[in-house]
Protein backbone atom coordinates (compact mmCIF):
# COMPACT_ATOMS: atom_id res chain seq x y z
CA UNK A 1 0.00 0.00 0.00
CA UNK A 2 2.99 2.31 0.23
CA UNK A 3 2.43 3.42 -3.36
CA UNK A 4 -0.91 5.04 -2.69
CA UNK A 5 -0.73 8.38 -0.96
CA UNK A 6 -3.72 10.05 -2.53
CA UNK A 7 -5.33 13.38 -1.89
CA UNK A 8 -8.90 13.59 -0.63
CA UNK A 9 -10.51 16.48 -2.54
CA UNK A 10 -11.02 19.48 -0.31
CA UNK A 11 -14.69 20.30 -0.09
CA UNK A 12 -15.81 23.89 -0.23
CA UNK A 13 -18.47 23.05 2.35
CA UNK A 14 -16.30 22.66 5.36
CA UNK A 15 -12.94 23.93 6.46
CA UNK A 16 -13.27 21.96 9.67
CA UNK A 17 -10.55 19.43 10.34
CA UNK A 18 -10.94 15.91 11.63
CA UNK A 19 -10.25 15.40 15.35
CA UNK A 20 -6.51 15.16 16.00
CA UNK A 21 -5.22 11.93 17.49
CA UNK A 22 -3.62 12.38 20.91
CA UNK A 23 -0.07 11.32 20.10
CA UNK A 24 2.50 10.12 22.61
CA UNK A 25 5.59 7.90 22.82
CA UNK A 26 3.51 4.72 22.51
CA UNK A 27 1.51 5.50 19.37
CA UNK A 28 3.50 8.12 17.43
CA UNK A 29 5.00 5.52 15.04
CA UNK A 30 1.55 4.71 13.64
CA UNK A 31 0.78 8.27 12.57
CA UNK A 32 4.37 9.02 11.52
CA UNK A 33 4.41 5.97 9.24
CA UNK A 34 1.25 7.21 7.57
CA UNK A 35 2.30 10.85 7.37
CA UNK A 36 5.89 10.41 6.27
CA UNK A 37 5.77 7.24 4.16
CA UNK A 38 2.10 6.56 3.43
CA UNK A 39 2.41 3.24 5.21
CA UNK A 40 0.06 1.46 7.58
CA UNK A 41 2.36 0.11 10.28
CA UNK A 42 1.45 -2.14 13.18
CA UNK A 43 3.45 -2.75 16.34
CA UNK A 44 5.47 -5.95 16.08
CA UNK A 45 7.22 -7.73 18.97
CA UNK A 46 10.93 -8.14 18.24
CA UNK A 47 11.12 -11.17 20.53
CA UNK A 48 8.01 -13.28 19.80
CA UNK A 49 6.80 -11.75 16.50
CA UNK A 50 3.36 -10.98 17.94
CA UNK A 51 1.50 -8.16 16.16
CA UNK A 52 -0.57 -5.97 18.45
CA UNK A 53 -2.98 -3.11 17.94
CA UNK A 54 -3.77 -0.69 19.48
CA UNK A 55 -0.15 -0.30 20.58
CA UNK A 56 0.87 -1.10 24.14
CA UNK A 57 4.44 -0.81 25.44
CA UNK A 58 4.67 -4.40 26.70
CA UNK A 59 3.97 -7.49 24.63
CA UNK A 60 0.96 -9.34 26.11
CA UNK A 61 2.39 -12.65 24.86
CA UNK A 62 5.98 -12.50 26.15
CA UNK A 63 6.21 -9.23 28.15
CA UNK A 64 9.00 -7.96 25.95
CA UNK A 65 9.49 -4.21 25.70
CA UNK A 66 11.33 -4.52 22.38
CA UNK A 67 9.21 -3.74 19.35
CA UNK A 68 9.28 -2.12 15.95
CA UNK A 69 6.68 -0.97 13.41
CA UNK A 70 5.89 -3.47 10.68
CA UNK A 71 4.37 -2.36 7.37
CA UNK A 72 1.12 -4.12 6.51
CA UNK A 73 0.13 -5.44 3.08
CA UNK A 74 -2.98 -3.27 2.80
CA UNK A 75 -5.30 -6.23 2.33
CA UNK A 76 -8.09 -7.06 4.76
CA UNK A 77 -11.74 -7.93 5.25
CA UNK A 78 -14.65 -6.09 6.82
CA UNK A 79 -15.20 -7.22 10.42
CA UNK A 80 -17.98 -4.77 11.35
CA UNK A 81 -19.20 -1.26 10.59
CA UNK A 82 -21.57 1.56 11.52
CA UNK A 83 -23.24 4.18 9.36
CA UNK A 84 -23.30 7.52 11.17
CA UNK A 85 -26.26 9.90 11.22
CA UNK A 86 -26.23 11.70 14.58
CA UNK A 87 -24.48 13.70 15.83
CA UNK A 88 -22.60 14.78 12.71
CA UNK A 89 -19.56 16.92 13.39
CA UNK A 90 -17.86 18.64 10.40
CA UNK A 91 -15.98 17.68 8.30
CA UNK A 92 -17.97 14.43 8.49
CA UNK A 93 -21.22 14.25 6.53
CA UNK A 94 -24.32 12.16 7.26
CA UNK A 95 -24.07 8.55 6.12
CA UNK A 96 -20.32 8.11 6.48
CA UNK A 97 -19.18 4.61 7.33
CA UNK A 98 -16.72 3.64 10.05
CA UNK A 99 -15.40 0.10 9.89
CA UNK A 100 -13.39 -2.36 11.89
CA UNK A 101 -11.09 -3.94 9.30
CA UNK A 102 -9.34 -7.23 9.95
CA UNK A 103 -5.98 -7.08 8.19
CA UNK A 104 -4.72 -10.23 6.51
CA UNK A 105 -1.89 -10.18 9.06
CA UNK A 106 -4.56 -10.79 11.74
CA UNK A 107 -4.97 -7.54 13.66
CA UNK A 108 -8.00 -5.25 13.45
CA UNK A 109 -7.92 -1.50 12.86
CA UNK A 110 -10.70 1.11 12.85
CA UNK A 111 -10.86 3.21 9.67
CA UNK A 112 -13.38 4.72 7.28
CA UNK A 113 -14.91 2.61 4.53
CA UNK A 114 -15.45 4.45 1.26
CA UNK A 115 -16.29 3.70 -2.35
CA UNK A 116 -19.26 1.46 -1.55
CA UNK A 117 -22.97 2.14 -1.15
CA UNK A 118 -24.54 1.37 2.21
CA UNK A 119 -26.69 -1.42 0.75
CA UNK A 120 -23.67 -3.13 -0.79
CA UNK A 121 -21.66 -3.33 2.42
CA UNK A 122 -21.17 -6.92 3.61
CA UNK A 123 -19.30 -8.18 6.63
CA UNK A 124 -16.46 -10.32 5.32
CA UNK A 125 -16.07 -8.38 2.07
CA UNK A 126 -12.43 -8.07 0.90
CA UNK A 127 -10.95 -4.60 1.25
CA UNK A 128 -7.95 -2.66 0.06
CA UNK A 129 -6.45 -0.18 2.49
CA UNK A 130 -4.63 2.94 1.33
CA UNK A 131 -3.13 5.91 3.15
CA UNK A 132 -5.01 9.10 2.33
CA UNK A 133 -4.17 12.67 3.26
CA UNK A 134 -7.00 14.35 5.16
CA UNK A 135 -5.28 17.72 5.64
CA UNK A 136 -1.80 19.22 5.96
CA UNK A 137 -1.12 17.37 9.21
CA UNK A 138 -3.12 14.17 9.05
CA UNK A 139 -2.87 11.01 6.95
CA UNK A 140 -5.17 8.14 7.81
CA UNK A 141 -5.81 4.66 6.41
CA UNK A 142 -8.99 4.33 4.32
CA UNK A 143 -10.60 1.05 3.22
CA UNK A 144 -12.27 0.51 -0.14
CA UNK A 145 -13.69 -2.64 -1.73
CA UNK A 146 -10.83 -4.72 -3.14
CA UNK A 147 -10.69 -4.90 -6.92
CA UNK A 148 -13.73 -2.65 -7.35
CA UNK A 149 -13.90 0.82 -8.79
CA UNK A 150 -13.22 3.21 -5.97
Amino acid at each position, binding site marked *: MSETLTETPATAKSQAL*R*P*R*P*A*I*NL*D*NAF*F*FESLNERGELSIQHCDDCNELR*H*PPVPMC*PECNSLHWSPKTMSGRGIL*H*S*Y*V*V*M*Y*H*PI*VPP*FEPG*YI*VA*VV*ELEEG*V*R*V*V*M*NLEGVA*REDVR*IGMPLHIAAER*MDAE*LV*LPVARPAGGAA
Partner: protein
Amino acid sequence: MSNLLNKAVIVGIGATEFSKNSGRSELQLAQEAALAACRDAGVNPQDVDGMVTYSMDTNPAIEVARGLGCKELNFFSHVDYGGGAAAGTILHAAMAVATGVAKTVVCYRAFNERSGARFGQAMSTAGMAPDARAAAYAWTLPFGLMTPASWVGMFAQRYMHLTGATSEDFGRVAVADRKHAATNPKAWFYEKPITLEDHQNSRWIADPLHLLDCCQESDGGQAFVITTPERAKDLPGKAVTIRAAAQGAAYDQHTMVSYYRKDGDRPLPEMGNVARQLWNDTGLRPEDIDTAVLYDHFTPFVLAQLEEFGFCGRGEAKDFIKNGAIELGGRLPINTNGGQLGEAYIHGMNGIAEGVRQLRGTAVNQVENARNVLVTAGTGVPTSALILGND
Protein backbone atom coordinates in the same frame (compact mmCIF):
# COMPACT_ATOMS: atom_id res chain seq x y z
CA MET B 1 -14.79 -17.52 46.09
CA SER B 2 -15.33 -14.21 47.81
CA ASN B 3 -16.10 -14.30 51.55
CA LEU B 4 -18.30 -11.24 51.28
CA LEU B 5 -21.47 -13.33 51.03
CA ASN B 6 -24.36 -11.69 52.92
CA LYS B 7 -21.98 -9.59 55.06
CA ALA B 8 -23.36 -6.19 54.04
CA VAL B 9 -26.76 -4.67 53.36
CA ILE B 10 -28.28 -1.71 51.57
CA VAL B 11 -30.39 -0.06 54.27
CA GLY B 12 -31.24 3.22 52.58
CA ILE B 13 -31.97 4.52 49.09
CA GLY B 14 -32.49 8.10 48.06
CA ALA B 15 -32.76 10.08 44.87
CA THR B 16 -33.63 13.45 43.45
CA GLU B 17 -36.27 13.80 40.78
CA PHE B 18 -35.07 12.69 37.34
CA SER B 19 -35.33 15.48 34.78
CA LYS B 20 -33.80 17.15 31.74
CA ASN B 21 -32.84 20.33 33.57
CA SER B 22 -32.42 20.11 37.32
CA GLY B 23 -31.65 23.81 37.77
CA ARG B 24 -29.12 23.08 40.52
CA SER B 25 -25.49 22.10 40.79
CA GLU B 26 -24.33 18.51 40.53
CA LEU B 27 -23.01 18.84 44.09
CA GLN B 28 -26.42 19.86 45.34
CA LEU B 29 -27.99 16.87 43.58
CA ALA B 30 -25.41 14.58 45.24
CA GLN B 31 -26.10 16.03 48.68
CA GLU B 32 -29.88 15.84 48.24
CA ALA B 33 -29.68 12.19 47.13
CA ALA B 34 -27.27 11.27 49.94
CA LEU B 35 -29.44 12.95 52.58
CA ALA B 36 -32.54 11.21 51.23
CA ALA B 37 -30.74 7.85 51.47
CA CYS B 38 -29.70 8.56 55.07
CA ARG B 39 -33.26 9.51 56.02
CA ASP B 40 -34.62 6.37 54.33
CA ALA B 41 -32.14 4.31 56.35
CA GLY B 42 -32.75 6.20 59.58
CA VAL B 43 -29.06 7.07 59.79
CA ASN B 44 -27.84 10.40 61.13
CA PRO B 45 -25.85 11.81 58.18
CA GLN B 46 -23.21 13.08 60.61
CA ASP B 47 -22.39 9.43 61.39
CA VAL B 48 -21.63 8.46 57.78
CA ASP B 49 -17.95 7.49 57.81
CA GLY B 50 -17.39 6.26 54.25
CA MET B 51 -18.09 7.57 50.73
CA VAL B 52 -17.92 5.88 47.33
CA THR B 53 -18.57 7.28 43.89
CA TYR B 54 -17.02 6.77 40.48
CA SER B 55 -14.61 8.14 37.99
CA MET B 56 -16.88 10.44 35.98
CA ASP B 57 -18.66 11.95 38.98
CA THR B 58 -17.62 15.57 39.62
CA ASN B 59 -18.55 15.63 43.29
CA PRO B 60 -15.63 15.01 45.67
CA ALA B 61 -16.45 12.86 48.70
CA ILE B 62 -15.29 15.59 51.06
CA GLU B 63 -17.67 18.14 49.50
CA VAL B 64 -20.63 15.76 49.82
CA ALA B 65 -19.50 15.03 53.38
CA ARG B 66 -19.28 18.75 54.22
CA GLY B 67 -22.92 19.19 53.32
CA LEU B 68 -24.00 16.14 55.26
CA GLY B 69 -21.99 17.36 58.23
CA CYS B 70 -20.07 14.10 58.52
CA LYS B 71 -17.85 14.21 61.59
CA GLU B 72 -15.08 12.21 59.93
CA LEU B 73 -14.52 9.84 57.03
CA ASN B 74 -12.58 6.60 57.44
CA PHE B 75 -13.00 5.32 53.90
CA PHE B 76 -13.36 6.90 50.46
CA SER B 77 -13.12 5.18 47.12
CA HIS B 78 -13.44 6.42 43.55
CA VAL B 79 -14.24 3.47 41.32
CA ASP B 80 -12.99 3.60 37.73
CA TYR B 81 -14.70 3.18 34.36
CA GLY B 82 -17.84 5.30 34.43
CA GLY B 83 -21.14 3.45 34.35
CA GLY B 84 -19.28 0.17 34.65
CA ALA B 85 -18.56 1.19 38.24
CA ALA B 86 -22.18 1.50 39.41
CA ALA B 87 -22.43 -1.87 41.18
CA GLY B 88 -18.73 -1.60 41.97
CA THR B 89 -19.51 1.23 44.38
CA ILE B 90 -21.69 -1.18 46.35
CA LEU B 91 -18.91 -3.80 46.25
CA HIS B 92 -16.37 -1.32 47.64
CA ALA B 93 -18.76 -0.18 50.35
CA ALA B 94 -19.63 -3.77 51.25
CA MET B 95 -15.94 -4.65 51.57
CA ALA B 96 -15.41 -1.63 53.81
CA VAL B 97 -18.23 -2.43 56.23
CA ALA B 98 -17.62 -6.20 56.20
CA THR B 99 -14.00 -5.66 57.21
CA GLY B 100 -14.76 -2.97 59.77
CA VAL B 101 -12.84 -0.30 57.85
CA ALA B 102 -16.02 1.79 57.93
CA LYS B 103 -19.41 1.43 59.61
CA THR B 104 -21.80 3.41 57.44
CA VAL B 105 -20.96 4.12 53.80
CA VAL B 106 -22.81 6.30 51.30
CA CYS B 107 -22.51 5.46 47.59
CA TYR B 108 -23.65 8.25 45.27
CA ARG B 109 -23.77 9.43 41.68
CA ALA B 110 -25.19 12.78 40.61
CA PHE B 111 -24.95 14.77 37.40
CA ASN B 112 -26.58 17.18 35.02
CA GLU B 113 -26.00 14.88 32.10
CA ARG B 114 -28.70 16.49 29.95
CA SER B 115 -28.54 20.17 30.89
CA GLY B 116 -24.75 20.09 31.37
CA ALA B 117 -22.08 17.94 29.71
CA ARG B 118 -23.97 15.43 27.53
CA PHE B 119 -22.48 11.99 27.02
CA GLY B 120 -24.28 11.56 23.69
CA GLN B 121 -22.30 14.34 22.04
CA ALA B 122 -19.05 13.79 20.17
CA MET B 123 -16.11 12.97 22.42
CA SER B 124 -13.04 15.18 22.09
CA THR B 125 -9.52 14.93 23.45
CA ALA B 126 -8.60 18.43 22.26
CA GLY B 127 -6.65 20.19 24.96
CA MET B 128 -6.01 17.00 26.92
CA ALA B 129 -2.47 15.87 27.71
CA PRO B 130 -1.67 12.87 25.46
CA ASP B 131 -1.60 10.32 28.26
CA ALA B 132 -2.81 6.75 27.86
CA ARG B 133 -6.45 7.67 28.42
CA ALA B 134 -6.40 10.34 25.70
CA ALA B 135 -4.26 8.25 23.35
CA ALA B 136 -6.81 5.42 23.48
CA TYR B 137 -9.17 7.71 21.55
CA ALA B 138 -6.62 8.15 18.76
CA TRP B 139 -7.98 4.90 17.27
CA THR B 140 -11.55 6.14 16.96
CA LEU B 141 -12.04 9.93 17.01
CA PRO B 142 -10.11 10.81 13.79
CA PHE B 143 -12.36 8.40 11.90
CA GLY B 144 -15.58 9.92 13.23
CA LEU B 145 -16.26 7.14 15.73
CA MET B 146 -16.89 9.65 18.49
CA THR B 147 -20.05 8.71 20.42
CA PRO B 148 -21.18 5.89 22.70
CA ALA B 149 -23.88 4.97 20.15
CA SER B 150 -21.25 4.59 17.43
CA TRP B 151 -19.01 2.47 19.65
CA VAL B 152 -21.86 0.14 20.58
CA GLY B 153 -23.29 0.11 17.04
CA MET B 154 -20.06 -1.49 15.86
CA PHE B 155 -20.57 -4.38 18.29
CA ALA B 156 -24.27 -4.60 17.42
CA GLN B 157 -23.63 -4.97 13.69
CA ARG B 158 -21.21 -7.83 14.30
CA TYR B 159 -23.62 -9.44 16.78
CA MET B 160 -26.45 -9.33 14.21
CA HIS B 161 -24.17 -10.90 11.62
CA LEU B 162 -23.21 -13.74 13.95
CA THR B 163 -26.54 -14.49 15.62
CA GLY B 164 -29.19 -13.47 13.11
CA ALA B 165 -30.63 -11.00 15.63
CA THR B 166 -32.44 -8.11 13.96
CA SER B 167 -33.18 -4.50 14.76
CA GLU B 168 -36.65 -5.65 15.83
CA ASP B 169 -35.07 -7.91 18.42
CA PHE B 170 -33.25 -4.88 19.84
CA GLY B 171 -36.58 -3.06 19.71
CA ARG B 172 -38.24 -5.61 21.98
CA VAL B 173 -35.95 -4.42 24.78
CA ALA B 174 -37.02 -0.82 24.20
CA VAL B 175 -40.69 -1.82 24.14
CA ALA B 176 -40.33 -3.68 27.46
CA ASP B 177 -38.51 -0.76 29.11
CA ARG B 178 -41.05 1.77 27.92
CA LYS B 179 -43.95 -0.47 28.98
CA HIS B 180 -42.55 -0.52 32.51
CA ALA B 181 -41.79 3.21 32.47
CA ALA B 182 -45.37 3.91 31.42
CA THR B 183 -46.62 2.87 34.86
CA ASN B 184 -43.79 4.46 36.88
CA PRO B 185 -44.66 8.05 37.88
CA LYS B 186 -40.97 8.79 38.53
CA ALA B 187 -40.05 7.83 34.94
CA TRP B 188 -39.47 10.53 32.33
CA PHE B 189 -41.56 8.45 29.91
CA TYR B 190 -44.41 7.87 32.39
CA GLU B 191 -47.60 7.04 30.47
CA LYS B 192 -45.66 6.99 27.17
CA PRO B 193 -45.30 3.40 26.00
CA ILE B 194 -44.00 2.63 22.50
CA THR B 195 -44.69 -0.08 19.95
CA LEU B 196 -42.19 -2.08 17.93
CA GLU B 197 -43.34 -0.04 14.94
CA ASP B 198 -42.44 3.18 16.77
CA HIS B 199 -39.00 1.73 17.35
CA GLN B 200 -38.53 0.74 13.72
CA ASN B 201 -39.72 4.15 12.53
CA SER B 202 -37.43 6.13 14.83
CA ARG B 203 -34.53 7.83 13.06
CA TRP B 204 -31.09 6.35 12.67
CA ILE B 205 -28.44 7.44 15.14
CA ALA B 206 -25.63 5.04 14.29
CA ASP B 207 -27.03 2.38 11.95
CA PRO B 208 -27.78 -0.34 13.19
CA LEU B 209 -28.99 1.72 16.17
CA HIS B 210 -32.21 3.69 15.96
CA LEU B 211 -33.01 6.58 18.31
CA LEU B 212 -35.20 4.27 20.41
CA ASP B 213 -32.29 1.87 20.95
CA CYS B 214 -30.53 4.62 22.90
CA CYS B 215 -31.01 5.55 26.53
CA GLN B 216 -32.07 9.00 27.63
CA GLU B 217 -29.83 11.79 28.75
CA SER B 218 -30.87 12.82 32.24
CA ASP B 219 -30.21 15.08 35.21
CA GLY B 220 -30.44 13.57 38.66
CA GLY B 221 -28.80 11.95 41.64
CA GLN B 222 -29.08 8.58 43.35
CA ALA B 223 -27.51 7.39 46.59
CA PHE B 224 -27.40 4.39 48.93
CA VAL B 225 -26.47 3.67 52.53
CA ILE B 226 -24.51 0.45 53.11
CA THR B 227 -23.82 -1.07 56.51
CA THR B 228 -23.59 -4.47 58.22
CA PRO B 229 -26.64 -6.70 58.81
CA GLU B 230 -26.02 -6.40 62.56
CA ARG B 231 -26.07 -2.60 62.56
CA ALA B 232 -29.08 -2.55 60.25
CA LYS B 233 -31.13 -4.39 62.87
CA ASP B 234 -31.15 -1.20 64.93
CA LEU B 235 -32.16 1.01 61.99
CA PRO B 236 -35.69 1.70 60.74
CA GLY B 237 -34.79 1.31 57.05
CA LYS B 238 -35.70 -2.07 55.53
CA ALA B 239 -32.37 -3.74 54.78
CA VAL B 240 -31.75 -5.64 51.57
CA THR B 241 -28.90 -8.15 51.57
CA ILE B 242 -25.96 -7.80 49.21
CA ARG B 243 -25.64 -11.50 48.41
CA ALA B 244 -22.65 -10.90 46.17
CA ALA B 245 -21.07 -8.13 44.14
CA ALA B 246 -18.24 -8.29 41.64
CA GLN B 247 -16.18 -6.21 39.26
CA GLY B 248 -14.74 -7.53 36.03
CA ALA B 249 -12.49 -6.76 33.11
CA ALA B 250 -11.44 -9.29 30.50
CA TYR B 251 -8.34 -9.86 28.38
CA ASP B 252 -7.38 -7.10 25.94
CA GLN B 253 -9.96 -4.85 27.58
CA HIS B 254 -10.64 -1.39 26.20
CA THR B 255 -13.22 1.22 27.17
CA MET B 256 -16.29 0.82 24.90
CA VAL B 257 -14.19 -0.34 21.94
CA SER B 258 -12.83 -3.82 22.67
CA TYR B 259 -12.87 -4.65 18.96
CA TYR B 260 -9.44 -6.23 18.91
CA ARG B 261 -9.77 -9.49 20.84
CA LYS B 262 -8.49 -12.52 19.03
CA ASP B 263 -11.78 -14.43 19.18
CA GLY B 264 -13.59 -11.24 18.17
CA ASP B 265 -17.01 -12.78 18.41
CA ARG B 266 -18.04 -12.40 22.05
CA PRO B 267 -19.07 -8.84 22.78
CA LEU B 268 -18.96 -8.85 26.58
CA PRO B 269 -16.48 -11.35 28.09
CA GLU B 270 -15.96 -8.88 30.96
CA MET B 271 -19.60 -9.37 31.95
CA GLY B 272 -19.05 -13.12 31.68
CA ASN B 273 -16.27 -12.72 34.23
CA VAL B 274 -18.66 -10.88 36.58
CA ALA B 275 -21.40 -13.48 36.02
CA ARG B 276 -19.09 -16.37 36.86
CA GLN B 277 -18.06 -14.68 40.12
CA LEU B 278 -21.66 -13.98 41.16
CA TRP B 279 -22.88 -17.51 40.44
CA ASN B 280 -19.87 -19.04 42.19
CA ASP B 281 -20.13 -16.77 45.23
CA THR B 282 -23.86 -17.27 45.79
CA GLY B 283 -24.44 -20.80 44.49
CA LEU B 284 -27.44 -19.36 42.68
CA ARG B 285 -28.32 -20.16 39.08
CA PRO B 286 -30.07 -18.07 36.42
CA GLU B 287 -33.39 -19.75 37.22
CA ASP B 288 -33.14 -18.44 40.81
CA ILE B 289 -33.28 -14.81 39.64
CA ASP B 290 -36.80 -13.40 39.94
CA THR B 291 -36.16 -10.10 38.16
CA ALA B 292 -33.13 -8.28 36.80
CA VAL B 293 -32.05 -4.76 35.99
CA LEU B 294 -29.76 -5.14 32.99
CA TYR B 295 -27.76 -2.06 32.03
CA ASP B 296 -29.44 -0.60 28.99
CA HIS B 297 -27.55 2.41 27.66
CA PHE B 298 -28.15 0.71 24.29
CA THR B 299 -30.50 -2.20 23.66
CA PRO B 300 -28.15 -4.68 21.90
CA PHE B 301 -26.00 -5.21 24.98
CA VAL B 302 -29.07 -6.32 26.95
CA LEU B 303 -29.22 -9.35 24.65
CA ALA B 304 -25.50 -10.03 25.09
CA GLN B 305 -25.86 -9.81 28.89
CA LEU B 306 -28.66 -12.40 28.93
CA GLU B 307 -26.22 -14.72 27.19
CA GLU B 308 -23.22 -13.94 29.41
CA PHE B 309 -25.26 -14.65 32.55
CA GLY B 310 -26.53 -17.92 31.09
CA PHE B 311 -30.23 -17.04 30.97
CA CYS B 312 -29.98 -18.50 27.46
CA GLY B 313 -27.30 -19.90 25.20
CA ARG B 314 -24.95 -17.84 23.03
CA GLY B 315 -26.79 -16.18 20.19
CA GLU B 316 -30.16 -17.25 21.61
CA ALA B 317 -31.20 -14.05 23.37
CA LYS B 318 -33.27 -13.03 20.35
CA ASP B 319 -35.44 -16.12 20.97
CA PHE B 320 -35.40 -15.79 24.77
CA ILE B 321 -36.89 -12.28 24.73
CA LYS B 322 -39.79 -13.05 22.37
CA ASN B 323 -43.41 -13.11 23.53
CA GLY B 324 -42.98 -10.71 26.41
CA ALA B 325 -40.47 -12.87 28.31
CA ILE B 326 -38.67 -9.78 29.66
CA GLU B 327 -41.86 -7.87 30.49
CA LEU B 328 -43.73 -7.90 33.80
CA GLY B 329 -45.40 -11.32 34.04
CA GLY B 330 -42.81 -12.91 31.74
CA ARG B 331 -40.20 -15.49 32.68
CA LEU B 332 -37.58 -12.80 33.52
CA PRO B 333 -39.02 -9.30 33.89
CA ILE B 334 -36.18 -6.81 33.39
CA ASN B 335 -35.83 -3.11 34.09
CA THR B 336 -39.17 -2.90 35.88
CA ASN B 337 -38.55 0.80 36.62
CA GLY B 338 -38.39 1.47 32.89
CA GLY B 339 -34.64 1.21 32.75
CA GLN B 340 -32.39 3.93 31.41
CA LEU B 341 -34.44 4.15 28.23
CA GLY B 342 -37.66 4.72 30.15
CA GLU B 343 -37.05 5.97 33.69
CA ALA B 344 -33.78 7.92 33.51
CA TYR B 345 -30.11 7.54 32.74
CA ILE B 346 -28.44 7.84 36.13
CA HIS B 347 -25.42 5.88 34.98
CA GLY B 348 -26.73 2.57 36.34
CA MET B 349 -27.41 3.73 39.90
CA ASN B 350 -31.20 4.06 39.52
CA GLY B 351 -31.28 0.37 38.51
CA ILE B 352 -29.75 -0.61 41.85
CA ALA B 353 -32.48 1.38 43.60
CA GLU B 354 -35.09 -0.58 41.64
CA GLY B 355 -33.47 -3.82 42.80
CA VAL B 356 -33.85 -2.66 46.41
CA ARG B 357 -37.49 -1.67 45.88
CA GLN B 358 -38.31 -5.07 44.33
CA LEU B 359 -36.94 -6.83 47.41
CA ARG B 360 -38.69 -4.45 49.80
CA GLY B 361 -41.93 -5.04 47.95
CA THR B 362 -42.30 -1.36 47.13
CA ALA B 363 -41.72 -1.30 43.35
CA VAL B 364 -44.44 0.25 41.20
CA ASN B 365 -44.16 -2.76 38.90
CA GLN B 366 -43.72 -5.31 41.64
CA VAL B 367 -42.64 -8.86 40.83
CA GLU B 368 -44.46 -11.11 43.27
CA ASN B 369 -42.33 -12.71 45.97
CA ALA B 370 -39.06 -11.47 44.50
CA ARG B 371 -36.21 -12.99 46.53
CA ASN B 372 -33.16 -12.63 44.26
CA VAL B 373 -32.52 -9.67 41.99
CA LEU B 374 -29.61 -9.25 39.60
CA VAL B 375 -28.43 -5.72 38.78
CA THR B 376 -25.69 -5.07 36.23
CA ALA B 377 -23.57 -2.01 35.48
CA GLY B 378 -22.24 -0.42 32.31
CA THR B 379 -21.59 -2.64 29.32
CA GLY B 380 -18.68 -2.41 26.91
CA VAL B 381 -16.50 -1.04 29.70
CA PRO B 382 -14.81 -2.74 32.65
CA THR B 383 -17.93 -3.48 34.62
CA SER B 384 -19.64 -4.79 37.74
CA ALA B 385 -22.88 -6.36 38.92
CA LEU B 386 -24.53 -7.56 42.10
CA ILE B 387 -27.18 -9.94 43.37
CA LEU B 388 -29.46 -8.57 46.05
CA GLY B 389 -31.71 -10.67 48.30
CA ASN B 390 -34.32 -10.11 50.96
CA ASP B 391 -33.22 -12.37 53.76
